């Protein structure tokens, strides 16, 4: 199966290890991966802040980069969700709307692709830790993807997955919200970190770079001994 990797700007800049793990997991499943070089950022920072025209520029760039792909797979529920918003950005432009719809229809979040398209739930991963999982809002509510990460994590040998209190509450990232509304975002991420701590987990797993950057940033600032990992890092682990 031929897939195009949409690595996301956060993945490319900060979370290359997770991106590499994702590539290796997918290759092991027999996928032939390409990396369209025109890809930059999905445009969500501009879109969510109200800068529609700037978001359109980013979207056109991404649509052009990915229009010939068969499947687009990304290690972020939120960025996949943004691709699904593309048709709405071009309501007055039939040509771009059609292209946007095609791109949106073939876009999948990493775990969603493995479980729903490849039909695989056990990746043979081994990871010895007590962990809990942070459900990203956009993956859960925009992509409506709630089960795939758990199906895959439940088959990881050695992984004890602990339930997270108020898992449905946002971690306080919200893109530019995290810097525009610092005092509110701080309370939200603190409550999230407190719930993570209460589980007794050593590792927090998430499938979204934005949430990861926010929660890890706060955990590290507070000096808490909890590691924060992208789900691809767990699923590619063999020890």
């Amino acid at each position, binding site marked *: 199966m031929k897939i195009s990797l949409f690595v996301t700007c956060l993945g490319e800049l900060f979370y290359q290890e997770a991106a590499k793990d994702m590539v290796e997991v997918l290759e092991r499943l027999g996928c032939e991966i*390409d990396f369209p070089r025109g890809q930059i950022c999905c445009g969500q920072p501009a879109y969510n802040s109200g800068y529609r025209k*700037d978001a359109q520029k980013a979207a056109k760039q991404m649509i052009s980069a990915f229009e010939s792909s068969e499947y687009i797979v990304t290690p972020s529920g939120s960025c996949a969700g943004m691709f699904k918003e593309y048709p709405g950005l071009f309501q007055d432009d039939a040509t771009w709307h059609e292209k946007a719809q095609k791109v949106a229809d073939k876009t999948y979040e990493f775990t969603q692709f493995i479980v729903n398209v490849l039909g695989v739930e056990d990746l043979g991963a081994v990871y010895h830790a007590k962990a809990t999982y942070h459900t990203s809002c956009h993956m859960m509510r925009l992509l409506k993807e709630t089960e795939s990460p758990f199906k895959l994590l439940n088959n990881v040998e050695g992984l004890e997955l602990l339930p997270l209190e108020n898992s449905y509450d946002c971690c306080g990232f919200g893109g530019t919200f995290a810097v525009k509304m610092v005092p509110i975002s701080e309370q939200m991420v603190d409550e999230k970190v407190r719930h993570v701590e209460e589980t007794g987990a050593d590792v927090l797993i998430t499938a979204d770079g934005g949430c990861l950057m926010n929660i890890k*940033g706060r955990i590290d*600032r507070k000096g808490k001994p909890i590691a924060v990992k992208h789900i691809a890092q767990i699923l590619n682990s063999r020890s």
Partner: protein
Amino acid sequence: MAMKIGEKPFFDRVDDALDDTFMRQSMANAQDGLRGKKIAATEGDEAIGDWEDWRSAGEEIRRHTLENLDYYLEQLSENFAKRGGHVFFAETAEEANAYIQQVAKKKNAKNATKAKSMVTEEIGLNEALADVGCQVHETDLAEYILQAEEGDRPSHIVVPSLHKNKSQIRDTLKEKAGYSGTDQPEELTAFARSQLRDVFMNADIGITGCNFGVAETGSVSLVTNEGNANMVTSYPETQISVMGMERLVPTWEDLDVMVNLLSRSAVGQKITTYVTNVTPEVGPQSVDGPKDFHLVIVDGGRSKALGTEFQSALHCIRCAACVNVCPVYRHIGGHAYGSIYQGPIGAVLSPILGGYEEYGELPYASSLCAACTEACPVKIPLHEQLIRHRQIYVEEGYADKSEQAAMTAFGIGASTPSLFKIATKGAPTFAKPFVQEGSISNGPGPMKLWTKIREFPAPGKENFRKWFKEHKKGDSRNE
């Protein structure tokens, strides 16, 4: 007092709220408590079938009503008038108040009782009637407490005094109403009840809001738990119901669906203790009910949303399900919004009704987590409407100039691969002076706001594209 709460700027209100540890605990407890109740009465209640079907039916009824609003408003008012009631259409809060003042003056009314109503808060009716010598007595328990406090305002559209605890309530009633008992809720309630008995008996006018007008019969439906609305609508000979322009349903069958959606979503009740339906029966044969019944229908800026992408915000039935799941409301409570309409729906409605100058910051008080959209029983796409408000805010030039410049730069950067390549290659070098132990604690420029409370990740040293190229070798599309 009307719709606006307080004079402080947004961030000062947020700071005040974040300092109020009792209020915050109370919001969190309320959200956590209501969550289970709501689930049990909605998707968890097998007796009603699929909750999603109910939501779809509710959305359909609201959409149909709003799309044919002229028709149903006319039907409602014709039927109301046919039975001897008086209907007044008020374009503004001032017009609504002036009409009600004139009714009060004609009756020489000194005392009015009122059941809980958000639209009368919105238009500032209590103050308007006080100006003509008529005192309005709040009879909903929570509103009664807030009124006793003098100047306190609702912090939740369904549970207005959510920000107060029982000892605060005891102190208020001691100081303002001569209460001398304990802070036991039963005792406090019994006191309020005994005080309100006389008030009900001596009212010259009864005032209610309107959960739903029923067009086919010209009726006003009130969804309550305390029974006070029944007292308000039974004693006085003069009755005034104030209705937001959009708050009606075509038929009783539709009402059945909407009352289910409202009580289940708002408080997790299958049905509220009272669903009171009042229809004018004014005439010589009439023995029960008011001798004089007025329905005041308020636009108050609602028509600005008609025909726009915000029209579905008018589908709202004020259940506060979105407020009850909002993680921002959870921490800042209601007053920080500076509007009597708080939470996600408040952040959508307030700028429509009161403008961007006053309420333009509210749509940004959301992480766009979409919990609101998921909770809404009539499927208003709340988080999308928040984004739409942000777009208008930017287009109309309210946004910060440095943010505009940054986003223009973003637009260019995100559509110019050569620039992005330079940026990703240069990032580790650029960030190097700020990096300590793998992350940035005190970032420059726009990163500063991020690093105020969190670490910023140091850019990875390895170039992913280079790694991928070497890893793959030979795929033509990688060139």
